[in-house]
């Protein structure tokens, strides 16, 4: 399903949010509203106690979600409950320890049963994936999505491209996810460099995309972009959740 999205669409907007935030039952509301508002891809974060690859905004939302009582069983049942109501690719993002504690195969099976299409597991290293997890992922027809950064060497990017089968998550700058300013020359030259590598997989740019200008810029160099912290900030605001979501997405996607 992710492949289809990339085949059919341009300027893909992927939104990250934390399951169980702001309230434990908002998970499904948010997914449905995001789809309705015109988002192309959704990343559902499973809150983790020690999210060392996340910035302060996502970190805070995770710890609030955990306080709300969210857990993996609940997330899966929430996802299953809207299985038939949605038709948008879903990616689950979590840390390796969560998958191990749940039982790796059980975890992947549940993902499949919940209509998950892909996984982002920031602390699952490439060769660990290849040696121990690739077969299982394939068994359950799940894509693993890898990250690359300006520091990633060309050979390694090629290796990652080789084992990827949906898209590559291109970190825009050396920074934890979080809302920063616009593109700088370093970022642009990095994007150009990757573009020129003509990878077999499409790329989405993430980390630091916060507004329409960022998004449009990102789309010049890739198939689209991922927004996380800025979206979390938006849904943390007062006001109706659905309205907030709609406003946020329309602002990025449609306003001109």
């Amino acid at each position: 399903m992710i492949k289809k999205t990339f085949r059919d669409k341009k300027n893909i907007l992927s939104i990250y949010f934390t399951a169980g935030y702001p309230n434990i039952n908002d998970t499904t509301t948010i997914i449905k509203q995001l789809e309705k508002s015109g988002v192309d891809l959704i990343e559902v974060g499973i809150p983790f106690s020690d999210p060392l690859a996340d910035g302060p905004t996502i970190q805070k939302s995770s710890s609030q979600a955990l306080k709300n009582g969210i857990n993996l069983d609940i997330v899966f049942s929430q996802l299953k409950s809207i299985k038939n109501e949605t038709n948008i690719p879903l990616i689950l993002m979590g840390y390796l320890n969560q998958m191990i504690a749940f039982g790796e195969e059980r975890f992947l099976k549940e993902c499949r049963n919940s209509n998950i299409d892909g996984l982002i597991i920031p602390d699952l290293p490439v060769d660990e994936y290849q040696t121990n997890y690739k077969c299982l992922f394939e068994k359950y027809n799940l894509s693993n999505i890898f990250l690359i950064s300006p520091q990633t060497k060309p050979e390694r990017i090629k290796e990652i491209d080789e084992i990827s089968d949906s898209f590559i998550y291109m970190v825009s700058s050396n920074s934890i996810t979080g809302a920063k300013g616009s593109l700088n020359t370093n970022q642009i030259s990095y994007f150009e460099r990757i573009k020129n590598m003509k990878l077999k997989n499409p790329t989405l740019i993430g980390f630091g995309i916060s507004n329409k200008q960022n998004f449009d810029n990102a789309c010049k160099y890739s198939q689209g972009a991922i927004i996380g912290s800025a979206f979390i900030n938006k849904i943390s605001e007062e006001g109706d959740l659905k309205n907030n979501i709609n406003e946020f997405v329309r602002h990025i996607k449609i306003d001109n």
Partner: protein
Amino acid sequence: MKYKVNKKGFYGKFGGAYIPELLYPNVEELQNNYKQIIESDEFQTEYKKLLKYYVGRPSPLYYAERLSKQYNTNIYLKREDLNHTGAHKVNNTIGQILIAQKLGKKRIIAETGAGQHGVATAAVCALKGLECTVYMGEVDIARQAPNVARMKMLGAKVIPATSGSKTLKDAVNEAIRAWINNPEDTYYLIGSVVGPHPYPDMVAKLQAVISKEMKLQLKTQTGNENPDTIIACVGGGSNAAGSFYHYLKDENVKLVAVEASGEGVFSNKTAATIQVGTPGILHGSKTILMQDKYGQVIEPYSISAGLDYPGIGPIFAHLFDQKRAEFLNATDKEAIEAAFELAKLEGILPALESSHALAVLKKMKFKQDETVVVILSGRGDKDLQTYMKFI
């Protein structure tokens, strides 16, 4: 070799490098270079020079006469408390700062629990003129105030970690986060045998000076380079790893690792990872950790900031698995009692961490002619505020 790390960074089932791709270049650079650097003459010359003249090594192996009488055996204290900055931590920071320099790094970041690693890092950064930022849990900043002041005076920036239990594990999270943000010129100077490969092995190799000295000292002082028993406290496990290092293959040397059991192993206020933990991944390595069924890390508790950690170095998970080391634990109360006992019998104030190692003397049986080495990993000056509550 049974207890040493393999090429991929594993100790049996444990270890590895479970890190975000963003850190891959940094960790890979370190993996590819650390051994070679450490084994180089250039490194060894400078490392040994600094250990001798700056740190004040060798640290004495002190025969504690009155403590020995108390337990009717022969107790030696390995005096890491006499090191510059007051704990074993500096053995490691001296080594890593040389490695960082060799790799051309300009900024150093570190986490700290008790503040000893932070101080030791700040000191070597000053010594080498490098910028230094230390992450420390808010709770630890409050309970180890003297070390915070020392870091500041040494020119380091101390940044509070305000998430989770606001202790060591959260400081590690913040440090890793900061590293991800500044992967290029920044070196992450980890303070224990934790984190992704090669840190656990690198830190153990640098702390191994403890057991290297012990062999020579015991040979001179007792005629036998092997003691019967070595007792060390374990937070991440660097002082224990260093003092076990050269004895791992001598299976007749009993190795005792002491964890902090807070208000009791099963009180839910504990940091005794081996007792209540299960295998999982924390801070970049596969190890044993305190977690719930969803893999959420359980917030640990110990009166001692340096032991208040929900994980354990992967080598200890392996030593436990292989039954090569015995794992004991001491509660807050037992540690405090042991600290006062040492103060009154020997005129030495141990760090709260080290007090946990001392506390198990009461729980063990010794032969009269046995040689027992307790690692006095640090001095108690940083913990006076806590100790004074019990006077």
